[in-house]
């Protein structure tokens, strides 16, 4: 609807200082990706329309543009979210999850990671970055992280991931160097689980 498109909602709630705010978000994303499992706080100030959260909204503004098809899960999709993303970053909507560069989903209801683009053997970078909104980055089942960017092991306990997350994660890991990268966001707190990170339950034997 053109009145929805023109609504004040779509044109407000973006970065007030696009260059510096986008750089701050990008820097935070780079740091959490370089050190999987560490938590960084995103700058406040972005106000996306519901049901897109403030944290995922800031990530979208920093990363998405007309070259990056975006996929929105049912629980995040709405006419005003689409209008907001379209005006604020010019990002097109992906025809399906497998054609998206970035996907925004909610933890409990997220589709299987295998539904997203995992890149090709020649171009493993042509894959989806999955931005998952979770309840909290602590208070959940304890998980152990190992891999590049982690000195030995690191423990995390995000709350609000689907029950099948670990199975999906293992299948994603088996595709390496292909696979999706995951960013977990709760409010303005963010951590990353890039495809290179091996995740296991703390009560399981050590990953091989």
């Amino acid at each position, binding site marked *: 609807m*053109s009145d929805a498109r*023109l609504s*004040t909602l779509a*044109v*407000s709630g973006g970065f007030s200082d696009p260059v510096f705010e986008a750089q701050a978000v990008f820097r935070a994303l780079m740091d959490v990706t370089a050190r999987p499992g560490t938590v960084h706080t995103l700058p406040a100030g972005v106000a996306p329309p519901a049901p897109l959260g403030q944290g995922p909204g800031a990530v979208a503004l920093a990363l998405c543009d007309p070259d990056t098809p975006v996929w929105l899960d049912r629980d995040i999709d709405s006419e005003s979210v689409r209008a907001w993303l379209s005006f604020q970053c010019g990002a097109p909507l992906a025809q399906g999850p497998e054609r998206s560069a970035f996907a925004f989903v909610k933890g409990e209801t997220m589709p299987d990671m295998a539904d997203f683009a995992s890149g090709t053997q020649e171009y493993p970078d042509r894959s989806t970055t999955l931005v998952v909104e979770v309840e909290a980055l602590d208070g959940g089942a304890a998980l152990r992280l190992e891999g590049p960017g982690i000195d030995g092991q690191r423990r995390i306990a995000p709350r609000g991931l689907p029950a099948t997350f670990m199975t999906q994660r293992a299948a994603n890991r088996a595709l390496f160097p292909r696979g999706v990268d995951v960013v977990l966001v709760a409010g303005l707190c963010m951590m990353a689980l890039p495809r290179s990170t091996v995740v296991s339950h703390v009560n399981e034997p050590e990953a091989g």
Partner: protein
Amino acid sequence: MAKAETAGGSEQGLKRLMDVLAASPGDEIDACAEALGSLPEAAPVRGPEIGLVMVRGRIGGDGAPFNLGEAAVTRATVRLASGAVGHAYALGQDRAKARLSAVLAAMWSEGARRTDIEAQVLAPLAAARAEEVSRVKREAAATRVDFFTMVRGDD
């Protein structure tokens, strides 16, 4: 903004205004806008900013699209106190023109001064553009070849 203003019919009107503003030089828009008297306060929402638009052609002139090359474009979005939002997109790097065009588009959407804008801005600019096109067509027509046949021999 008032929702009634964005109904189908006025979409055509807004498009016509934005098309003519994009095609017109900044100083001409300035001169027309002055005739409107004082312009409302407008808060910047986005830009004015310079970027690129990939210009597409068609293969063979009538086939599938292909990317011909990019063009420099300036765009701006402003919001008036009433909440009315205006956008502007135009080829070139004229930031002041983009901002003023966005303000005029927002005023047009607001509705109250639509008749003024049509008379003081849209009409004179559209006439100037039509005159330019007509001049090019007339100059080109003067270079059209009129063939004539020379008859040789008696039979």
